[in-house]
């Protein structure tokens, strides 16, 4: 479904991704972890063509996501890490969820009753129907995350790319969003790539853990295999300290 072959990318002469190869299959639920600056977000953005690799090849549904960006992005959802809604933009929650249908619909076509039905269904599933008419810029962090999830659900995507979506949320909201993502994964049989720092709160359904360090592939583990020894080497801190922080890391 997603094939990444020997991909490298530099910014300002600094190599952010170096010779990365990865094969993500249908219904994989992949966590991408690694220290700050490891290239996690860059890797995610190459998957939907927002960043073009300097070398190597990315194929999503056998298509080049940069050359066929609009077509690929119709099937690939993306939630950004700092995706906040500006207070000055007069959009309701429903307006924002509708944004998900706009790209699918295409230019010069109005949203139809079918589109609005998808929007309603997505809002119901995420549990934000009562927020429908609220100004989107005035929501809490957790509510804004749910709106973003509903927006991508309304698109009927097959792949969901999530870039540190738990960041800046309190523990209760982190757990709530995690369980929402898990239930969406099970119900819609999606392929999910989940970039995160919060090892304590990884969803239970994760099938693989891909670790990046200094732009290189540090390890590609099955979720059962990865343990605190691997993490200790990945983050360069001793195992005991890491255990105190993330608990006994075993999925």
């Amino acid at each position, binding site marked *: 479904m997603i094939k990444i072959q020997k991909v490298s990318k530099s910014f300002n002469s600094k190599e952010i991704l170096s010779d990365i190869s990865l094969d993500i299959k249908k219904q994989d639920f992949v966590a991408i972890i690694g220290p700050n600056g490891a290239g996690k977000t860059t890797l995610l953005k190459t998957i939907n063509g927002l960043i073009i690799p300097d070398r190597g090849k990315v194929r999503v549904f056998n298509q080049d996501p940069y050359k066929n960006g609009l077509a690929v992005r119709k099937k690939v959802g*993306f939630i950004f890490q700092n995706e906040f809604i500006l207070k000055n*933009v*007069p959009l309701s929650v429903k*307006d924002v969820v509708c944004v998900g249908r706009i790209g*699918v619909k295409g230019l010069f076509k109005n949203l139809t009753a079918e589109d609005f039905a998808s929007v309603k269904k997505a809002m119901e599933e995420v549990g934000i129907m009562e927020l429908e008419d609220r100004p989107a810029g005035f929501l809490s962090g957790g509510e804004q995350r749910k709106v973003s999830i509903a927006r991508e659900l309304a698109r009927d995507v097959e792949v969901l790319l999530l870039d540190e979506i738990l960041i800046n949320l309190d523990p209760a909201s982190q757990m709530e969003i995690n369980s929402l993502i898990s239930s969406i994964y099970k119900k819609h049989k999606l392929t999910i790539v989940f970039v995160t720092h919060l090892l304590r709160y990884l969803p239970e359904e994760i099938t693989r853990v891909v670790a990046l360090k200094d732009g290189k592939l540090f390890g590609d583990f099955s979720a059962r295999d990865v343990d605190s020894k691997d993490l200790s080497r990945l983050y360069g801190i001793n195992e005991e300290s890491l255990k105190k922080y993330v608990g006994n890391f075993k999925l």
Partner: protein
Amino acid sequence: MWEILSYNYFQNALMGSILAGVGLGIVGVWVVLLRIPFVGVAISHAAFAGSVIGLLFGVNPIMMAIVFSLLASISIGPIAEKSGLEANVIIGIIFSLVLGVAFLGLGLIKGPKTEAFNLIWGSILTLSRVNIYLNAGITFLVILFLLFLGKEIKAVFYNREVAMASGIPEKFIFFSLLFLSGFVICLNLNTIGGILIFSLLINPPSAARILTHSLSKMYFLSILFGIISCLLGLIFSYMFGVPAGATIIIVSSIIFIISMVLRGRNGS
């Protein structure tokens, strides 16, 4: 007072006012929500620089004003994209560049410079039928763009990166918004003038934003406030024998203040 309506120049001024209210009311919403208010100042000074260069080289100054302001509006988006800087920064750079060109040209022109300064101060009572047709054309184009691509424009306001990741051609939409805004501003310079146009571009949509959380209502109120500002400004200008540009701006500012008071009362 009503006999004034039979004069051609006043009919032109009335039509120019309504078109300015509609055109600037719509692009004002874009400029405010994209947070690039100074685009109005940069475009109007690009037009000023164009007219100065026109006078200097003996080319039609109005035509040169249009060419310069369109060049300025068309280059903001791609330069911002290429340099990785904010559109606001590029607007500042273009503003300083065109101002430099204008001052250089002014220093070199030996004859009268009135035509160039007309674009800065505006003269609604001297609008020609050609001005009206041009303004009507661009206003119609802006309305069509809004009707056919309104949902994509909404997505760009929400978040450009999300719009792009959702399969929306956000660069095309964003660049088109900048270009059309520049075009509308340029063609309305004769009506309101380069310095004062800034207020007519910002006050009506800001007053509208204060009163509503709905984008479609914001468009409607912004257009309404734009038309009211222009028409009342024109009437007061005639009644009191004062410059129309100034009265239009004062009315639009009063509308903004009234909106603030109303919002305070409603507590929203």
